[in-house]
């Protein structure tokens, strides 16, 4: 069975737990283990938080997730406006208050990519996770 989720969300803080819990419910329904679900939830939470924290009023963002028994592929698509997806490239200093989101996504998922959208303003954060446990 393949499950595809596409959500368009307002860039406010309340959207992040909603997205995380929605995706988690789908993965649970597919029988994915809690450990793998936690990794995906963290990466998704980080990507959403990044969009939200650089929001301009009234803008939206999209989350697309495709999952089957083997793999979960997630994209978080920032529609631009405001400051688009400000990812600090390097590692944050150990006691910095910010700048760890990308490090966490990379640590807990696979095939992490950040790209500018080709035909429109904004950026795409892409990550994947093998679901085999």
């Amino acid at each position, binding site marked *: 069975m393949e499950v595809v989720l596409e959500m368009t969300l307002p860039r406010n803080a309340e959207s*992040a737990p909603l997205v995380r819990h929605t995706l988690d419910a789908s993965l649970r329904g597919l029988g994915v283990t809690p450990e793998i679900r936690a990794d995906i939830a963290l990466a998704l939470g980080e990507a959403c938080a990044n969009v939200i924290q650089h929001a301009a009023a009234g803008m939206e963002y999209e989350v697309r997730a495709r999952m089957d028994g083997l793999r979960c592929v997630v994209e978080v698509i920032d529609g631009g406006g405001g400051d688009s997806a400000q990812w600090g490239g390097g590692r944050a200093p150990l006691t910095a208050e910010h700048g760890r989101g990308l490090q966490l996504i990379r640590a807990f998922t696979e095939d992490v990519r950040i790209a500018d959208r080709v035909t429109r303003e904004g950026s795409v954060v892409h990550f994947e996770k093998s679901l085999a446990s």
Partner: protein
Amino acid sequence: MALTGDIDVETSPRLREFLIGLVDAGARHLVIDLDGVAFLDSTGLGVMIGVFHRLGAANGSMAFAGGPAAVRGVFHVTQLTRVFALHDTLDQALLPVR
């Protein structure tokens, strides 16, 4: 003190306000029980580090106890176990403070 639920971009601002309020009211040694925390992301870590800096300026301390594997994993991956003590149990965390 015990925290519960998700610590994320939605809840972190309130947590920061609460913890900074404790420090402003005179608390100097914070021990945070994470056993009830289901989710912790980098915005939550940012709160902890902000509070840590405040406590450091006041010669205080901050330590953590317990927590599910995913929450503890976030501390390890970011190497914040080099900044904060992350104890297995609350009793262990409280020993240096008694």
